[in-house]
């Protein structure tokens, strides 16, 4: 099978780079997750810990709380972005003057570095020189202070993520909707289906692969959010926005608890893979249905 060898040859550089830069560190993380390794421990040594780190995890209510908040954050963020993005993409299907300008401006947040997004939103929300607290107080008499009120901080991180990533969803949806064949919809309208029915029974099923893929990508990135939130709230107030990415960062760097941090990281990776696998299977099924129908 000379031909197959060519195929592997083409794949090889990718596999090698990801093997060295992705798999190797992963194996190392796996290895140290079985050790007690804290730079500041009395012994200062790496000590075999078996599955102790994982056992600690199960009873670490602070960590589990953080995981729960992250899942909630991801769920709310991805759902909102999906709905908003779909809605906006459908308004962009027809031509109207200025469309390109609107679309370009809409895509702006996409290119801003997460750490700069965090800085931008901090400037917007910090009492003293932020716009939001000033005008919310002046116009609506709302005491907006994300350093102080947990719910406000949570929803601000949510708003920030939606602001940052909805454009991405809009663009993928737009790409999908544009590439979709128009005839079935037109036929359905002629046959007397109303808008809602067309959307429900034609557009959404046909868009399913795009939707699932988009959810997949957004979910993956939302679950490991760090930079933006770290700049905005540092994970506060209290524990309100200490999502797992930040939680692990704190365990690994300031606490230098490398073993425990590695175990946490693996657990989160495992969760993500399971979720991703479910979506992946769903995607394959949707694909099969489409090709069979």
């Amino acid at each position, binding site marked *: 099978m000379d031909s197959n060898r060519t195929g592997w040859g083409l794949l090889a550089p990718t596999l090698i780079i990801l093997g060295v830069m992705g798999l190797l560190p992963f194996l190392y993380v796996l290895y140290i997750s079985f050790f007690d390794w804290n730079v500041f421990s009395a012994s*200062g040594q790496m000590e075999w810990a078996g599955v102790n780190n994982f056992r600690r995890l199960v009873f670490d209510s602070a960590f589990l709380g953080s995981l729960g908040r992250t899942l909630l954050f991801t769920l709310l963020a991805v759902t909102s972005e999906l709905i908003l993005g779909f809605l906006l993409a459908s308004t962009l299907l027809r031509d109207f003057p200025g469309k390109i300008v609107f679309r370009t401006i809409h895509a702006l947040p996409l290119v801003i570095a997460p750490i700069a997004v965090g800085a931008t939103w901090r400037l917007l929300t910090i009492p003293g020189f932020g716009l939001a607290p000033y005008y919310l107080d002046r116009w609506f008499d709302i005491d907006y202070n994300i*350093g102080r009120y947990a719910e406000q901080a949570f929803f601000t991180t949510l708003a920030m993520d939606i602001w940052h990533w909805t454009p991405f969803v809009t663009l993928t949806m737009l790409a999908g909707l544009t590439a979709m064949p128009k005839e079935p919809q037109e036929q359905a309208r002629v046959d007397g289906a109303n808008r809602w029915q067309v959307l429900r029974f034609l557009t959404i099923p046909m868009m399913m692969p795009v939707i699932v893929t988009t959810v997949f990508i957004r979910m993956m990135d939302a679950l490991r959010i760090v930079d933006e939130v770290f700049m905005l709230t540092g994970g506060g107030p209290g524990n309100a926005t200490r999502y797992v990415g930040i939680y692990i960062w704190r365990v690994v760097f300031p606490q230098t608890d490398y073993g425990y941090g590695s175990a946490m990281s693996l657990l989160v990776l495992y969760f993500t893979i399971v979720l991703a696998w479910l979506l992946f299977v769903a995607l394959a099924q949707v694909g099969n249905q489409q090709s069979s129908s």
Partner: protein
Amino acid sequence: MSSRRLLPLLVPLMIVSMILAACSAPAAPAPTAEPAAGTDTSGGDSAAASGDTSWWSEAAAPYAGVTLRGVSESTPASRYVEEVLAPMFTEATGINVEFEVTSWDEMYQKAIQDMEANTGIYDFVYIEQDIIYTYLGRDFLTNLTQLMADNENLASPDFDVNNFTSFIDNFKDPETGDLYGVPMEAFIKINLYRTDLFDDPDIQAAFEAEYGYPLSVATTHEQYRDNAEFFTAYGEENDMDLWGTTVQGHTGHPSATYEFVESIAPTYGVYNWGVNLDTWKACVDNGGEMNSDTAKEALNFWLDMLNYAPPEATSSTWDEVAASFAAGRAAQGWVYGENATWIATDTDRSAVVGNVGVARSPLSDGVLEEAESGEGYIGYYDGGAFGVPHSSRNKEAALLWLEFIGQESVQADWAVAGSRIVMNSTFDDPKVQEADVATNGYYTMLKDDGPLYRGAPPFPFHNTLRESMDPFFWQALAGELTAEEALDQACAAAEAAMVQLGYGE
């Protein structure tokens, strides 16, 4: 069809990027090929200040061309080292200095990683006073006394340990007295207050009318509270952006915990964060003090101050506290002394120039006596030194560099640039005296009151311990826990963390 039109666009783009990528090739294999590329060495006019230049070039002859790399926190004192002292040193010795000035979190992460993994990336690292015991506990640092003894030809005549203030004792091994770091900045956390407000006769009259005693800088916590309450109300009545005090109360940053354990708890007589240094226990039940009634009183006082602090207090780290005070938003407050000079003198950055006074923190009864007898302390003496990691591959050249920054002749300008003083003689320098007048006596206070302040307790696990306590202070500041709940939970978490590390089992 559209794809055809895209190609002409894509091709030039790729060519440009290939050229750019090619540019990266020569630099990548030789990361140290561009010595001190970042710093403008052409000036060099201040090289004369560096004492006996010929000694330096002679001693450094074997190491000329070596590149030292160091990491430090981005403070004014560090930036002065990067921009002024490093080029001076390179000119005198031919040894290059690459200096990475970065954020506080990152500085620790990278220095610790390097020393733990024994990689030898850094030849000198910033050692903040509070981490020194942790580093010593792990033998992370090179013994400088030993190194000088082993290389007599490298011992500069201009470097003398006895020139330094007592702050240098923090960087000596408590048992042998050997030196592990050369101090480069030191300051105390003080109280700043607005002289224009405290000296205003109308305000004084209004205060006395309301509280029944004359307005003055607070010496007790009750008085501090009254002042804070009064000025907050005063700001509101006069539609000013003025509040009674600052609080370093960021609800997601370690600086909040630090303000309490360093600057509030000691003024109530709770020292060493309430941790018993013999048994490594923190809770009252186990012989600690972290959740004692006094500690709870102290935390209640501090949380109460939030009511009289500007709204950004719960988003304020050490950075923003100084910024708030400099913007004229607080009548009094706890501010790190390294900020005193710029707040008092720099009109580009500060709106309260000429109106800044310095004072001791308010104290409970008996605390001052305990501090004077050496039993306790009234606040935080912070600062840092440069040390040589055990993993450095250029220890001798690094030693020369540390001696260079430890010369008396480079201190005065540096002191003024960074509000930092590490030598006794620097206090007498005219430039420092001038700054002392501008700050209404900060440097005099640093000199006279210095012994009453103290650095962090000798924890060999500083960061881990603080991290375990942080969330409870954050929750207390956010109003989710009472002071009592927060301290009860914090001491338990602190004990758990210490046991996990193998202390106090």
